[in-house]
C-alpha cells in the first residue's frame, strides 16, 4: 500500500520520458504543458510516497482511508481514460492512413498535372504563334520606324485577330511603344513599362512568356523579339486573358494540392498534437478527479478521523472528548453512541479514582500507624513479642533479641513453643500459662541462664489480645524486661541494710567481749589449774571476736563503699607493689610492664581488688610448686587489664554463677564479700571484673577504662 504512490510516479515518469517533446515539434507548447503536468503529478506522488515510506508513527486518523479512496477514484478514472486515449490514437492513426491514401495522392497529382498542362498548352501555343512574327518584315519596318502609327496598329489588329490575342503591342529597341491594339477599349493610354522578362527576352533574342495576375484575372503575357537583319530591333508583347472558369478550377486544384501536401508534411505533427491534446484532457480529468476525490474523501473520512482521534485520546486516558453528531446517517449514530460511551466511561473512571484516593488515604494512615508502631517498638528497651492464636510469633522487636540473645532462626512465623526449648523454656512456660489461664493478664519474674554462664532476671508480662471487628487478630502480647540490674541493686541495697544492722547490733558487744577475754587471760591465767586449756579458750574467744570484727568491717565496707578518688595511676607501680607485697611466695610470677602505662583510677581501691584476687589465687595453689600464680597487665587504646591466673583446682560451674554475689564463699573462713566488693569497685570505675576461665587456669580479668571520659560513658 505504501509503495503505490511511488509505483504510480515511476509509471508516470516513464510515460513522461517516452512523450518528451522533440525540439522541432510543432505542438511543442502543448507537449511541454503535458510534460510539466506529468512532472508535477510525479513529484506530488513521489513526495507523498516518501512521506508514507518514512512515516514511522501512526498517521493522522483517517488519512490512510482518504488516500485509499483518492487512489481508487483516480485509478477508476485513469484506466478508462487511458483505454479511451489508446483507442482514439488508434482511430486517428487509421483515419490518417485513410486520409493520406495513395489513391488520393495520385488523384491530386493528376489534377495538378492537368492544371499545369493547361498553362503549358497556353504557353506553348503562345510561343509557337509568336515565333512566326520574329522576322515579320512589316513588324521589322514598324520597329525601325519606317511605318506610320496607323499602319502599325492596323497590322497589329490584323494579326491579333488572326492569333486570338487580347492585346498586342510593339516596342522599338529603345523600349518605346511603336503601336498597340487591344480587344475592346484601351485599358490605358500609356503602355506599361517592360518587365524584367521582356527585357531579358529582347536581350537574349528569345521568345518568353510570363503569367501576371491582374484585377480582371490571370493574363498570359508573351514576348517575341523583332530581329532585324543583324540584331534585335524591337519587341512584340502580346496578352491572352486566361478563361476565368478554368483558372478558378486550376487554382482550386493547386490550393487543394498545397493543403494536402502541407497536411502530409504535418502528418506526424497532427498525430502528436492529437495525442498531446488527448493526454492533456486525460491529465486534466485525472487532476480534477483527484481533487474532487480528495474533497469527497476528506468529507467522508472526517467523521471517521474524528472518531479515531477521539478513540486514541480515550486510549491515552483523556476522557474529555466529544465528537460532532451533526450528520443523521450511520456515522452520526456512531458518534452519538461513542459520546454516550465516553461519558459513562468518564463517570466510572471518576468513581474509581475517588475510591482509589480513599484507599490511598487509608493505606497512608495505616502505613503511618505501622511506621509509628515499628519505630516505637524499635526504640523500646523493653522486649515485645506478638504471638498469634496458633502460637506463631508474628512480631518481635530488636530489644527482645538483645535481651534474650535470640538466635537468627527467631523470625516471624516461628513457633514459640518449639523455639523456646533449652535456656528459654521459661518463656515458653510463661506463654503456656498465659494461654491456658482464664485471666487476660499474667506477670512473672524468673531467671534465664544464657550462654557463657550469664544469667538474666527478667520480668515477663503477658496479655491476651481478643479478636475485634476491625483488626480480626487474636493472640498474645508478651512484654519482657531485663531487670537484672534492678534486682542486683535491690539485692545490694538489702545486703547493705543487713550489713548496717549487723554492724550496729554486733559490733558494739564485740569490743567488751574481746577486752573481757584479754582481762581474763591476764588476771586469771595464773589461778586456773590447766593453763593450757585456759589459753586455748581465751585465744579462741579473742580470735573469733577479731574474726567477727573483720567480718563487721567488710560488711561496713560493702554497705558504705566510698566513692573512688580518681587520679592518674601508674600500672607498673601497682604491679611492683604487688610483687613487693607478695614476694615471699615463690610460686607467684608478677610480670612487669612498660613504665609509661597508666590509667585513671583510685589506686587504693584497685590495689584492694588485686590483693583480693591474689589472696584467692595463692589460697587455691597452696602447696603447689613452680609459677602457679601469674599476674600481668595489658593495655589497649581504650582500657587497661590486669590478669590473675592460677593453676589451682579451679571453680565449679555452679559456683561460678554465684561467685560475685555477696556472702557467697567456697572457703570455710571466707566472708563471701571479697569478690562482691571487688566487682563493685570495678563497676564504680566504669570497668568490669570477669571470670575468664573457671579452671586450668583459673583466670580473672580486671578491666578499667584508661580515661575519665570513657569511665563516665561506661
Amino acid at each position, binding site marked *: 500500500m505504501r509503495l503505490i504512490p511511488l509505483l504510480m510516479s515511476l509509471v508516470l515518469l516513464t510515460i513522461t520520458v517516452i512523450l518528451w517533446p522533440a*525540439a522541432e*515539434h510543432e505542438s*511543442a*507548447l502543448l507537449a*511541454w504543458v503535458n510534460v510539466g503536468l506529468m512532472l508535477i503529478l510525479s513529484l506530488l506522488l513521489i513526495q507523498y510516497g516518501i512521506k508514507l515510506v518514512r512515516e514511522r508513527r501512526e498517521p493522522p486518523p483517517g488519512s490512510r482511508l482518504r488516500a485509499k479512496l483518492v487512489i481508487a477514484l483516480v485509478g477508476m478514472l485513469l484506466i478508462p481514460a487511458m483505454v479511451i486515449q489508446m483507442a482514439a490514437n488508434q482511430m486517428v492513426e487509421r483515419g490518417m492512413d485513410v486520409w493520406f491514401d495513395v489513391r488520393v495522392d495520385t488523384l491530386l497529382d493528376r489534377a*495538378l498535372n492537368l*492544371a*499545369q498542362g*493547361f*498553362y503549358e498548352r497556353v504557353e506553348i501555343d503562345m510561343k509557337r504563334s509568336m515565333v512566326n512574327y520574329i522576322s515579320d518584315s512589316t513588324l521589322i519596318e514598324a520597329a525601325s520606324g519606317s511605318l506610320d502609327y496607323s499602319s502599325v496598329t492596323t497590322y497589329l489588329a490584323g494579326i491579333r485577330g488572326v492569333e486570338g490575342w487580347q492585346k498586342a503591342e510593339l516596342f522599338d529597341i529603345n523600349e518605346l511603344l511603336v503601336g498597340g491594339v487591344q480587344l475592346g477599349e484601351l485599358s490605358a493610354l500609356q503602355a506599361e513599362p517592360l518587365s524584367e522578362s521582356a527585357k531579358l527576352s529582347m536581350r537574349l533574342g528569345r521568345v518568353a512568356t*510570363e*503569367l501576371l495576375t491582374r484585377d480582371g484575372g490571370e493574363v498570359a503575357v508573351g514576348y517575341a523579339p523583332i530581329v532585324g537583319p543583324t540584331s534585335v530591333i524591337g519587341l512584340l508583347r502580346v496578352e491572352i486573358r486566361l478563361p476565368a472558369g478554368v483558372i478558378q478550377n*486550376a*487554382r482550386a486544384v*493547386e490550393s487543394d*494540392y*498545397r493543403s494536402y*501536401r*502541407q497536411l*502530409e*508534411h*504535418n502528418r506526424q505533427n497532427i498525430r502528436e498534437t492529437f495525442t498531446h491534446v488527448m493526454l492533456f484532457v486525460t491529465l486534466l480529468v485525472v487532476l480534477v478527479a483527484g481533487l474532487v476525490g480528495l474533497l469527497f474523501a476528506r468529507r467522508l473520512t472526517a467523521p471517521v478521523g474524528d472518531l479515531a482521534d477521539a478513540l486514541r485520546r480515550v486510549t491515552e486516558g483523556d476522557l474529555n472528548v466529544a465528537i460532532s453528531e451533526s450528520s443523521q446517517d450511520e456515522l452520526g449514530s456512531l458518534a452519538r453512541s461513542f459520546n454516550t460511551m465516553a461519558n459513562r466511561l468518564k463517570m466510572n473512571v471518576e468513581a474509581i479514582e475517588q475510591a482509589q484516593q480513599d484507599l490511598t488515604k487509608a493505606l497512608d494512615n495505616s502505613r503511618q500507624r505501622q511506621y509509628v508502631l515499628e519505630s516505637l517498638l524499635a526504640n523500646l528497651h523493653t522486649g515485645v513479642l506478638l504471638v498469634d492464636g496458633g502460637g506463631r510469633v508474628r512480631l518481635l522487636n530488636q530489644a527482645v533479641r538483645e535481651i534474650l540473645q535470640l538466635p537468627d532462626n527467631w523470625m516471624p512465623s516461628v513457633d514459640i513453643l518449639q523455639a523456646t526449648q533449652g535456656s528459654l523454656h521459661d518463656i515458653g512456660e510463661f506463654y503456656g500459662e498465659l494461654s491456658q489461664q482464664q485471666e487476660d493478664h499474667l506477670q512473672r519474674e524468673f531467671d534465664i541462664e544464657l550462654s557463657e554462664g550469664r544469667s538474666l532476671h527478667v520480668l515477663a508480662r503477658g496479655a491476651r489480645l481478643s479478636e475485634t471487628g476491625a483488626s480480626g487478630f487474636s493472640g498474645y502480647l508478651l512484654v519482657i524486661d531485663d531487670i537484672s540490674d534492678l534486682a542486683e541493686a535491690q539485692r545490694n541495697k538489702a545486703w547493705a541494710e543487713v550489713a548496717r544492722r549487723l554492724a550496729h547490733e554486733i559490733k558494739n558487744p564485740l569490743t567488751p567481749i574481746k577486752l573481757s577475754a584479754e582481762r581474763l587471760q591476764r588476771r586469771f591465767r595464773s589461778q586456773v589449774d590447766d593453763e593450757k586449756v585456759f589459753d586455748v579458750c581465751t585465744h579462741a574467744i579473742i580470735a573469733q571476736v577479731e574474726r567477727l570484727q573483720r567480718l563487721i568491717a567488710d560488711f561496713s565496707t560493702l554497705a558504705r563503699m566510698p566513692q573512688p578518688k580518681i587520679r592518674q595511676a601508674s600500672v607498673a607501680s601497682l604491679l611492683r607493689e604487688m610483687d613487693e607485697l607478695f614476694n615471699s611466695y615463690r610460686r607467684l610470677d608478677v610480670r612487669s610492664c612498660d613504665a609509661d602505662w597508666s590509667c585513671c583510677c583510685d589506686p587504693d581501691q584497685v590495689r584492694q581488688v588485686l590483693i583480693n584476687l591474689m589472696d584467692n589465687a595463692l589460697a587455691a595453689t597452696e602447696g603447689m610448686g613452680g609459677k602457679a600464680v601469674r599476674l600481668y597487665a595489658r593495655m589497649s587504646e581504650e582500657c587497661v587489664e590486669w590478669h590473675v591466673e592460677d593453676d589451682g583446682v579451679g571453680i565449679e560451674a555452679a559456683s561460678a554463677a554465684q561467685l560475685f554475689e555477696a556472702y557467697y564463699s567456697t572457703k570455710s573462713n571466707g566472708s563471701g564479700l571479697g569478690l562482691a566488693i571487688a566487682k563493685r569497685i570495678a563497676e564504680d570505675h566504669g570497668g568490669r571484673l570477669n571470670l575468664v576461665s573457671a579452671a586450668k587456669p583459673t583466670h580473672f580479668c580486671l578491666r578499667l577504662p584508661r580515661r575519665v571520659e570513657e569511665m563516665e560513658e561506661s
Partner: protein
Amino acid sequence: MIPLLAAFFIAVCGTASAAERSTLNVQMDDRVIYCAATLKNSDDIFFHALKDGIPVATVWSVQVDRPREYWLNKSIAGIVVVRRVVPDLLSRSWLLEDQASGISRRVYTVSEVSRFLSNLDHFPVLDRSLLAANTVYLMRASVELHTGDINDAWWNGLMKSPHDTMQQEFSLP
C-alpha cells in the same frame, strides 16, 4: 604505414565534420552599418517544402549589442526581416515576398529562390551615429525557418528555437 592511415582517417573525419557554416559579415560606410549574412545547409528544407507547393519563410533577427563583462549585453539596435516564398505550382514560378518592405516579385529559377531565402546582402541594420568609436560591438543574427503559414500566436514563439545563429564582433575604426 600506421601514421599514413591515421592521417587519412583524420583527414576524412575532418572533411566529414567540416560542414559549411553560416556566415555573418559586418559592413559599413560613412553613415550606415550593414550586414551580409549567408545561411548554409538549409536548401534541402526549402526545396522539400517548395516542391509540394508549401510556402517557405525565413525570419532573420539581427541584433547589435555592446558586450559587458559582468552584466547582460546592452542592446543597441535590433531588426527583424521576414522573407517568404510562395510557390506557384501552375506556372512553376515562385513569388518572393519581402514582408519588411512589402516588395514582391516572381522568379522562375530555383537559384534565385535559394539566394532570396538564405542571403542578406548588404542589408542596412543601424545608423553609424549610434555607435561609439573604439568600442567593441557584437552583431548577432539568428534565422528561423518556417514552412507553411507563419503562426503569429504569442505562444508559438515561446518554444521556437532558431535554426541557426551567427555572430561577429566589430568596432568602428
